[in-house]
């Protein structure tokens, strides 16, 4: 927000400077006597700023001081020029006639006569244009080299039946790794840290099958990581555009611009209390695209 304020201040300051420069420049009269003293002072201040900048740099540098020194150097020079322009120059207005942007008819006819010297051969012209067009289109074809056909790369993840859940460090996730009301970012074994595979494991604290729920953590709206969990309302919130997903209802979007539920991952408690998936995600993770429904 302070950046916004800073930008507004900057723009207003620049407009003000422009206005001042303008008003100062609106002077008349013959070669007036410029305020040499003021201009000399400004030039000296500018020199001081430049030297100060170099000295501060050599002494080790300090961002704020360097900025002030450089700003003084620049603005001294700038003001000196503006004041010189306003008070040291004749300032007489000049007047120019508008040339008609449309040239007089004789000129245009001469131009057309010159252009007419190209022989008018329809067949030749059409053949040449068609050849050039075909060449252009053919030249566009290698654009396909920019990237491979996507194939199933957006739908494929590391989740399949029997894949153990691991944390970002690769450690196995057990029933003891997570307490009531907590969430954990998990990945399939062997793909810790993979952004496409990331899943949020939630311990809702409810008894029975609704205790441990797992959903893809890639928002189905625009792909941001859905990192915010609100325990009281049992919802997941995406920070980018504030989509809200109902954890207890299959991560269905309740609010916000997401159009699809977060894909769910079926999990079970395996041997040694290690959690593992019993199948893949029930839908491709992340934002949608034009694909067969």
């Amino acid at each position: 927000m302070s950046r916004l304020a800073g930008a507004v201040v900057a723009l207003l300051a620049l407009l003000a400077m422009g206005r001042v420069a303008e008003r100062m420049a609106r002077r008349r009269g013959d070669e007036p006597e410029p305020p040499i003293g003021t201009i000399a002072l400004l030039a000296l201040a500018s020199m001081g700023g430049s030297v100060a900048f170099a000295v501060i740099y050599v002494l080790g540098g300090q961002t704020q001081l360097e900025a002030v020194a450089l700003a003084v150097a620049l603005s001294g020079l700038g003001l000196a020029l503006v004041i010189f322009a306003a008070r040291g120059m004749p300032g007489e207005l000049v007047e120019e006639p508008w040339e008609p942007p449309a040239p007089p008819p004789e000129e245009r006819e001469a131009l057309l006569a010159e252009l007419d010297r190209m022989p008018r051969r329809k067949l030749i012209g059409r053949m040449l244009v068609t050849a050039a067009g075909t060449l252009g289109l053919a030249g566009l074809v290698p654009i396909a080299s920019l990237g491979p056909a996507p194939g199933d790369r957006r739908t494929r993840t590391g989740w399949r039946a029997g894949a153990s859940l691991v944390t970002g460090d690769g450690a196995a996730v057990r029933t003891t790794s997570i307490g009531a009301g907590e969430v954990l970012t998990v990945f399939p074994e062997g793909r810790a840290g993979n952004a496409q595979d990331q899943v949020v494991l939630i311990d809702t604290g409810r008894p029975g099958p609704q205790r441990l729920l797992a959903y893809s953590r890639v928002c189905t709206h625009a792909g941001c990581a859905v990192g915010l969990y609100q325990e009281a309302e049992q919802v997941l919130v995406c920070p980018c555009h504030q989509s809200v997903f109902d954890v207890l209802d299959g991560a269905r979007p309740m609010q916000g611009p997401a159009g699809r539920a977060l894909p769910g991952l079926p999990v079970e408690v395996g041997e040694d209390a290690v959690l593992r998936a019993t199948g893949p995600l029930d839908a491709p993770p992340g934002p949608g695209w034009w694909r067969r429904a």
Partner: protein
Amino acid sequence: MNDAAGWIDRRLAVSRLAPKALRKAFPEQWSFLLGELALYAFAVLLLTGVILTLFYDPSAQPVIYEGSYAPLVGAEMSEAYRSVLTLSRDVQTGLLLRQTHHWAALVFVGAIVAHMCRVFFTGAYRRPREINWLVGIVLLVLALINGFAGYSLPDDLLAGATVRIFEATLLSLPVIGDDVASLVFGAPLDRETVMSRLFVLHVLIVPALLVAVISAHMAILLRQKHTQFGHGHRHERNVVGLPLWPEHAAKSGGLFFLVAALLVALGGLVEINPIWLRGPFDGTIVPSPIHPDWFQLWNSGALRLFPGWEPTVLGHAWPLGVFLPGVLFPALVIGLVALWPFLDRGEPGVPHHLLQRPRDHPRRTALGVAGLTLFVVLTAAGANDVLARAVDAPVSTVNSTLRWLLLIAPPVAGAIAYRWCRALVAAEVRRRGA
């Protein structure tokens, strides 16, 4: 100076053209300097940007940090992030350079928008200047693209999330979305390729286009001459102003130094994008609150307010909840703005060189005010999480309020602007009559 001029003239024979060029008239009015403001902000961007390129490493290769910033020692990060972190904390004047560059980008886009507003509200886009209006829209789009590419380069948490959202936007294109996203990103879910592509876009392709298009913009302006307000002895057949040499050159040169001074002051005194506080990109972490730079808040706001909608169309699921606010809406807005000179032509067949006061064209002014209000509401929506925290209300309430505001505020603001214009004109008429 005269010796140098003579030296050049003996080789290039410019003395015939030079006096006319040097006496070119520049109408004076403070708001005409907004374009120059954008130009000089761009100059600062180029200067600081070239130096930054010497320090930045566009690689997404992971490394372990072992530098001077203690909280991140031992953390895994991309080489790109490390290079920006090192520049910010270990290179003298590095942070000043980086922050000046970022501030210059914000001011650049702001100045373009302010300049566009001036041109819009004074009717300067009318014939013969439709071409330059279109050129200007191209410049705006290029600036927005480069702004997005630029703040994605440090590869911190915010940048990574933005790139992800950009991918989702591409995916939402009907039929071709998946393929387009794969082409742009080099592979689905691959970060290495997209980082180096954003780098090339930001450092080479778009700056080259910007320089070329800005040159075209100024060349057309010089050819067609600047518009002016009609007062005194100014009329549709003449241009009156200060000559290029020496008055305007000195004033403009001075303005450049003043703009540079302000940007350097901001760059050193007002912190911006402290990437070390957010940490390197990690696909499993997204900070909250999160929002892009100011000029993209309206996009984010549209994405936040639009309801989730993924209908089945022709047997395919189509994420309209992303496509409509993320692709179609911005395209329509920019398209409408670009075509505006052809929708509001003014008197047909006649060139217009005199500017109009906003109050003398209340309908256009009202429409412009309504458009700006819509933009402001969407921008506020882009920071709805910050707003919700500030007023201590749930985000859903903030969203509902903003949705109502989207519908109500623009027409209300437009109506107020309309009445105000008419009232101002009526007051003038009364003063003159009295």
